[in-house]
């Protein structure tokens, strides 16, 4: 098909301190095509936010991108100068944040915050700038935009603030929007509205979206393709439908099962994933999920698995010794109960 809009190859972002090195993003590769919504799923600390920040060059010390390539429209962003990056940010690639209150400058009017993001060479008069700001507020569906423009962030409700943030992010047109958990801080009804808005804008502006979330419901609603991350790496990547119907990685599998009302779950108690998230500074020798994996075998604890196509299907990648066919899947193991659920 066409060249993908974004190609991330083996991205590594580490945080350095006196005593340890935290490998927040440890060899992540994926592509995002035009006009597609790509989901990044995982629990807190798995590296999804850092991946996006690395794309935009927002990683602050003591963190640093130490390796890999980020090819946007064929150009490696990691080799671009500061000025070139500034041109890309906000015009080509943009980001919206999880908590809209802290993402907006409390001391500036909404109007000014939108105008700040505009390309001054295109919108070269005050009138043009004002009108466009007005347009943006209308676009995101904020009522009485004229008066709202003159207001400050604290005068908006949570959902409205998120819309404002979206308006600001998109006001110069974007090709790729990085949305970092945009609905997590909102209540459910508003969540739905904002999700629909993002979808609508994506179609209208012909954008791609990388959607970071830990909410599988959102993934189901919004994403075309999904990558599941764990301990700084992608452990499974495929299209949404396949992910839900045929999760192959034990982690993905466990995530699905812990959804209330997951297909086939008959237990009264919601299953959880035992154990704690891994310490990214001190990862175990083999597969990072092994300590918590009910299917773990000896090889899992000794060797790190690679991200490989599942049964030859390049559109479905899994990082697991058991699932890639090298070892036999042994049905019920010593750990945990026998699960119903996803068929084999």
């Amino acid at each position, binding site marked *: 098909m066409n060249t993908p809009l974004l190609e991330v190859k083996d991205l590594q972002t580490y945080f350095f301190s006196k005593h340890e090195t935290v490998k927040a993003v440890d060899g992540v590769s994926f592509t995002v095509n035009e006009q597609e919504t790509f989901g990044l799923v995982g629990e807190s600390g798995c590296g999804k936010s850092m991946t996006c*920040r690395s794309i*935009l060059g*927002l990683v*602050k010390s003591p963190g640093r991108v130490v390796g890999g390539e980020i090819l946007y429209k064929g150009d490696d962003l990691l080799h671009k100068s500061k000025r070139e990056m*500034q*041109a*890309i*940010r*906000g*015009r080509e690639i*943009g*980001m*919206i*944040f999880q*908590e809209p209150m*802290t*993402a*907006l*400058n*409390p*001391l*500036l009017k909404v109007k*000014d*915050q939108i105008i*700040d*993001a505009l390309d001054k060479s295109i919108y070269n008069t005050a009138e043009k700038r004002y009108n466009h700001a007005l347009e943006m507020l209308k676009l995101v569906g904020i009522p009485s935009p004229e008066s709202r423009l003159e207001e*400050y962030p*604290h005068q908006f409700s949570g959902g409205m603030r998120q819309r404002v*943030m979206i308006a*600001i*992010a998109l006001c*110069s047109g974007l090709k790729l929007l990085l949305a970092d958990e945009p609905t997590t801080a909102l209540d459910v009804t508003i969540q739905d509205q904002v999700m629909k808005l993002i979808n609508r804008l994506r179609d209208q502006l012909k954008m791609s979206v990388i959607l970071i979330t830990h909410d599988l419901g959102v993934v189901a609603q919004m994403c075309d393709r999904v990558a599941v991350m764990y301990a700084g790496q992608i452990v499974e990547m495929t299209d949404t439908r396949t992910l839900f119907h045929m999760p192959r990685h034990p982690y993905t599998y466990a995530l699905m099962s812990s959804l209330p009302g997951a297909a086939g779950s008959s237990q009264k108690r919601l299953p959880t994933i035992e154990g704690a998230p891994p310490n990214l500074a001190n990862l175990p020798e083999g597969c990072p999920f092994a300590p918590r994996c009910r299917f773990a075998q000896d090889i899992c604890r000794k060797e790190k698995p690679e991200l490989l196509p599942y049964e030859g299907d390049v559109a479905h990648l899994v990082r697991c010794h058991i699932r890639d066919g090298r070892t036999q899947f042994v049905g019920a193991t010593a750990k945990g109960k026998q699960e119903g659920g996803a068929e084999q």
Partner: protein
Amino acid sequence: MARLTYILKRILQMIPVLFVVIVLIFVMIRLIPGDPARLMLGETAVEADVEALREAMGLNEPYTTQFAIFFKNLLHFDFGNSLLYKTSCIDLVKERLPLTVSLTVVATLFSLLISIPLGFVAGLHKDKASDQAIRISALAAISMPTFWVGLLLMIAFSVKIRIFPAGGWGTTPLEHLQGLILPGIAQALMTAALLMRNLRNSVVDISRMDYVDFAVSKGVSTRRVRSAYIMKNSLISTITLLSTRITYMLGGSVVIETVFSLPGCGKLLVDAIFARDYAMVQCMVFIFALIVLLVSLITDIIYSFIDPRITL
């Protein structure tokens, strides 16, 4: 309109505070040992004379009577006559207050001039050479006693190189300004250092805020991010500190006034306390309390202009 109502409300609120201040100072100055009549006539004076003077000054009346008289006069803004100088306290203070206030204003300006640029540079370049250098200088500035700095400045710029007068503040406004520059700098140093530190830490914290990242991610120019996103927000917490320091500089002016022979209020108050000049102490403490309350009110008003989240 709302602001006006707020200001009026605050001014009314000052009244009970000032009342408490007055009662406290009235009682405290009389509780400490030391008799104004004796101190006035000197340690070599005769007991009989001291007693006669006490009587004449009305110091033998019961406290309640003394307070009643004092309070009644207070309502006319009459603080009575200074026991030491024998003239109206208010007149004496009125003569000296402009200098102390001017000195504080000059010192405030200097401290802002020094602390704001340095605080930003240090905050934006956290842990780099410039940050370290600025923080060490701040530490040095805090460690140096004000009077010593004052004297050094005087030696350097009044005696060795004759730029500024060695003390005093002249008669014309221009001379006033000249006379206040060295003392202003000396007075400003500690405040500048404290403000600088506070601002630096503010800048460091604010630089990590999401809205700074968001602005950068939108492609906003570094200059604009620094001014409208970082600087503006950092200054807010510093304003509170500045307000505290202003009241401190007002009250602590006696050292600088002594070193530079400036006829201000600081020395007036200190002398009044040592001489147990009740009337003068009461008058000056009242006026200082009033100024402190006003500075606090002005600070709050400034806040309300700068921070839209604050409603009065």
